[in-house]
């Protein structure tokens, strides 16, 4: 039997996300991970600026909202002040990979014992569909109306590949929220990213490829197809760094 109960770590509030957006699924996976680890009473969430700015309405947790991109710095302050709490940020691609790149990279480089859920939907959602650092080559957005042009805009930032080059992070993985199989893999990755923090292992980031039918100009169904056909080939899924796995291999 498939359990359909709402995770205890989540509220009954109906989300404000657009039809077909996978933020709701990702929220649920976070809630399930918190439930599974029994850490609801000591977990603190940090919402970003972007579509998930109101995430605090959907979790039964102490939460705050960071300035645009600064969530990893706020998380650092919270975690250093109260190391027994479990601190996570939930950030979009504009928030983390553009304006907050420095904060994300340096939190990773310090090996902060925090968890980052990085939602990559290749577009700025909240402000109405502008080009993101993760928008695909040729992708049409409000600010790349002729398609993202390499000569002018360069090429997308691959966050997992970049952060995996650092020595300090514990766990860096990319998953997708577009199919049952991928969602189940995402669930495992997100739970691991939280468990790592509970065990004091250090910085864990899970990039979740997410749909934005509204700003992609697609139906929810076509958005899922586009993720499979265009996004995942550009952003390969998998584990980019896992220090605990390396240790296991050596023993």
């Amino acid at each position: 039997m498939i359990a359909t109960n709402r995770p205890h770590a989540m509220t009954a509030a109906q989300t404000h996300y657009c039809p077909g957006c996978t933020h709701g699924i990702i929220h649920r996976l976070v809630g399930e991970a918190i439930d599974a680890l029994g850490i609801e009473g000591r977990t603190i969430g940090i919402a970003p600026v972007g579509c998930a700015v109101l995430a605090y309405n959907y979790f039964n947790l102490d939460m705050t909202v960071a300035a645009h991109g600064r969530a990893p710095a706020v998380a650092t302050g919270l975690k250093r002040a109260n190391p027994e709490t479990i601190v996570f940020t939930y950030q979009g691609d504009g928030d983390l990979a553009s304006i907050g790149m420095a904060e994300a990279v340096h939190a990773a480089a310090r090996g902060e014992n925090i968890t980052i859920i990085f939602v990559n939907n290749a577009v700025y959602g909240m402000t109405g569909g502008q080009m993101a650092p993760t928008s695909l080559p040729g992708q049409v957005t409000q600010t790349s109306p002729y398609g993202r042009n390499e000569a002018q805009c360069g090429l997308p930032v691959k966050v997992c590949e970049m952060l995996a080059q650092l020595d300090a992070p514990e766990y860096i993985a990319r998953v997708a929220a577009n199919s049952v199989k991928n969602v189940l893999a995402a669930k495992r990755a997100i739970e691991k990213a939280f468990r790592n923090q509970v065990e004091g292992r250090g910085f864990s980031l899970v990039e979740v490829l997410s749909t934005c039918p509204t700003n992609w100009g697609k139906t929810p169904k076509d958005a899922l197809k586009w993720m499979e056909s265009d996004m995942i080939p550009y952003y390969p899924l998998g584990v980019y760094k896992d220090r605990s796995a390396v240790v296991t291999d050596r023993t």
Partner: protein
Amino acid sequence: MAETVLMKGNEALAEAAVLAGCRYYFGYPITPQTEIGAYLARRMPQVGGVFLQAESEIAAIHMVYGASAAGKRVMTSSSSPGISLKSEGLSYLAGSDLPALVVNVQRAGPGLGGIQPSQADYMQATRGGGHGDFRNIVLAPASVQEMASLTMRGFDLADQYRMTAMILADGTIGQMMEPVTLETPTPTLVEKPWALTGTQGKREKNIITSLYLSPTELEKKNLSRFARYAAVQQKETEYEAFCMDDAQICLVAYGITARVSKNAVAAARAKGIRAGLIRPITLWPFPTEALRQAAKTVRQFLSVEMSMGQMMTDIELAIRCTRPVTLVSRVGGVIPAPEEVLVAIERAANEEAT
């Protein structure tokens, strides 16, 4: 009894923070305040605290936001260009009603400016220093002793009013050495039921945010914040009056220029000129009432500052322009000499005579 020691202003400030119970420091190096970070890098581990050198001033102020949200006494320090970077965080701290201590050991600007002392961030500090309607409590030390005492007071005020207290010092006060007595204060401990500590399954969740999408709700938030600001203005304004009993010429100066002005007032008195000094210790709230009272008998005001009349505006507002206010300033990192200020006093006295 605490012993008296010889210390740099920046170091006295840092030790005072530790004595006031601050255990969290986040900062980024910048001259002329690096001694604060260097001191706390050594000191914090000794008292079980956290010193963290952030990747930028922006990150540092948001780390302050996080530690403050956790309910802790926390501080950051910087100098002028770094404070501009922190202005984003100052606005978010204010919008979320989070207490913090922020230190600005001012250097000359604008831009990269120079590394010599300045008071050119007066407007930025006293008007909030970021977007939106908000204020910081701005404390202006004029000695190494005050670097310590105002830091301790700043932490208490920040907690009590849930706002940022800013120490607005300058390169001279930060760098110079003077005897200082470091008494362990009795911090005013304030309950922080709003802090993010995890619900422990025992209470409703706490949300700390500056986001209010409903205009009426946001207006209410702003108004309640300004009601708190009014209480600060009423209760916490502080200044020093020097030779003001019969003063006809009133100098207004804070920080290092107040030290210079005191010498100039003494020299003027020796020449029979009835000069006095009002030294704001809090720049926000500004000692408006003291100046208004002084304006009843004082004939002229001199605003002695290392900026181009930024404080002069507040003097004119305080006295409703009922008396002339003259700017006496050096800028760019130059400190006015007592002789220069004396010349300005004598000029004012001559105007009175004619």
